[in-house]
């Protein structure tokens, strides 16, 4: 396995010349200054405070009664599948606890033969904080040149922000327990992650979900899987007015498995369809499960379509098929819930699509959406069960 580092990647690109660097330095130091307007702070009324407290109490009570998928769902996003997943996923609630009291619960799981979705919760001391000042032995500093940006929602973010606002030389070391991005089969086969997210709750618990791909040759009716917890250490120090960081992953012997078993659901349907126009021929192959339609549309088209697609920017100036919208009859169901990508070679474009169906699974059609002219309903691909 080849190990790539940021430094190796940076060496691939030429550095700025000293002349250019000096010219830019003069430029930014000589920019015209302008006065900023002072911003007024809005006062909060007692009524507004009470209303917010009531809202918080209600939301907390509601969250406690929902599955983890549903707690993470975004009701404002019509293509968010997490609410649907909450309804169809099997309850797993398999819990393991580490020696130092971190508890991981695999809450729900869903497996359609190609992908596994899980939701999970982690509680306990997910982060321990050590503070200090001055030299730190053995640190391998990362991104010293422009500093580290801190995600304000991340574990231990407040302690890192305190260092950022503190004195030169201040440091903080966060020792964390985290879950690997992907999942594993029990024999160690890695299931690469397609999507997912985590959220830190106010009580310090962390909830999350993952969507991982199962290699075709490892698909089975029942899969024994595991999520893997690992321990890491992140050191942040204020240096030259910026934050620098040094990351260390603890020895793999400190990893811990959170095993679970998941059974393939039975309501999975293979759908195919074709379309031929004067310009292209299209072939769609999809899988419909309890929450989404995932598959591909392969287009044989003029080569300048492929050239345009391979250039991310040029696509704006060229009216070609940019994506596909899912319809059930005349009802628009989804514009796509994830950006799986488009691949081009020669005279072929392959669009990989992931579309939420929201329970509308009759008379499904894929309607092409052109970059300039929008949807072309007359070029829809009718999807039929195999």
């Amino acid at each position, binding site marked *: 396995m080849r190990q790539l580092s940021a430094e190796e990647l940076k060496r691939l690109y030429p550095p700025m010349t000293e002349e*250019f660097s000096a010219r830019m330095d003069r430029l930014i130091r000589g*920019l015209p200054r302008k006065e900023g307007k002072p911003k007024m702070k809005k006062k909060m009324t007692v009524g507004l405070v009470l209303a917010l407290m009531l809202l918080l109490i209600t939301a907390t009570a509601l969250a406690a009664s929902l599955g983890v998928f549903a707690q993470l769902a975004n009701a404002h996003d019509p293509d968010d599948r997490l609410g649907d997943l909450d309804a169809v996923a099997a309850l797993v609630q398999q819990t393991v606890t580490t020696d130092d009291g971190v508890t991981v619960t695999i809450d729900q799981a869903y497996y359609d033969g190609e992908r596994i979705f899980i939701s999970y919760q982690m509680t306990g001391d997910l982060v321990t904080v050590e503070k200090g000042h001055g030299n730190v032995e053995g640190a391998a500093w990362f991104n010293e040149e422009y500093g580290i*940006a801190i*995600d304000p929602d991340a574990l231990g973010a407040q302690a890192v922000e305190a260092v950022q606002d503190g004195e030169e030389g201040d440091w903080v070391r966060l020792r964390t327990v985290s879950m690997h991005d992907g999942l594993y089969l029990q024999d160690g086969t890695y299931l690469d*992650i397609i999507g*997912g997210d985590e959220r830190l709750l106010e009580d310090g618990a962390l909830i999350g979900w993952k969507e991982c791909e199962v290699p075709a040759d490892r698909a089975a009716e029942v899969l024994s899987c595991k999520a893997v917890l690992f321990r890491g250490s992140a050191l942040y120090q204020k240096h030259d007015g910026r934050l620098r960081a040094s990351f260390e992953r603890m020895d793999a012997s400190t990893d811990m498995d959170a095993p679970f078993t998941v059974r393939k659901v039975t309501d999975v349907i293979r759908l195919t369809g074709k379309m031929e126009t004067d310009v292209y021929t299209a072939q769609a192959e999809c899988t419909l499960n309890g929450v989404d339609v995932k598959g591909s549309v392969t287009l044989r088209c003029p080569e300048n379509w492929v050239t345009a697609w391979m250039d991310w*920017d040029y696509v704006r100036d060229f009216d070609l098929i940019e994506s596909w919208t899912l319809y059930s009859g005349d009802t628009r169901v989804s514009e796509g819930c994830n950006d*799986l990508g488009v*691949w081009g070679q020669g005279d072929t474009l392959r669009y990989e699509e992931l579309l939420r169906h929201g329970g509308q699974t009759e008379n499904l059609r894929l309607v092409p959406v052109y970059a300039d002219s929008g949807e072309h309903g007359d070029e829809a691909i009718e999807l039929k069960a195999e």
Partner: protein
Amino acid sequence: MDESAYVAFCESMMPGMYRMAYSILRSRHDAEDAVQQALLNAWKYRDRARAGAERAWMMRILINVSRDLNRKRRRSLPADSFPDVAAPPTDGDTGLYEAIDELPDILRTVFLLKYMEGMTEKEISAVLHVPQTSVKNRLFRARRALQDKLKEEVAL
């Protein structure tokens, strides 16, 4: 951001901005133009930078400027007058460079922001205005495409 903070911030960002512009425009001259224009645009709109998200904000400006330059260049110059493939590296692995350079722009940009510039998925999501799930997905596709091109597994 006050004046001295803005100067320090720009100085710290420039090397990464230059690398990213070069990866899009594949020309030293154009990358320099893009960085200069991005710094000017950023100064003009510096009140819009959200505290804690300045790096993503600046990189977004840079990428937009680079994309605009790319479009203008394609409109104004004959197709064979600018490089489709950037000059090979002088100090790095040519095979790796070509494998990355051949990735579609949409994957290469995400890949380099994450693994070369050390941005978090949340930051990249802000840079490109796409959901974090899309960032994860593009990284997944980029890693897989790179492994196919290099014919070996890649750990990052």
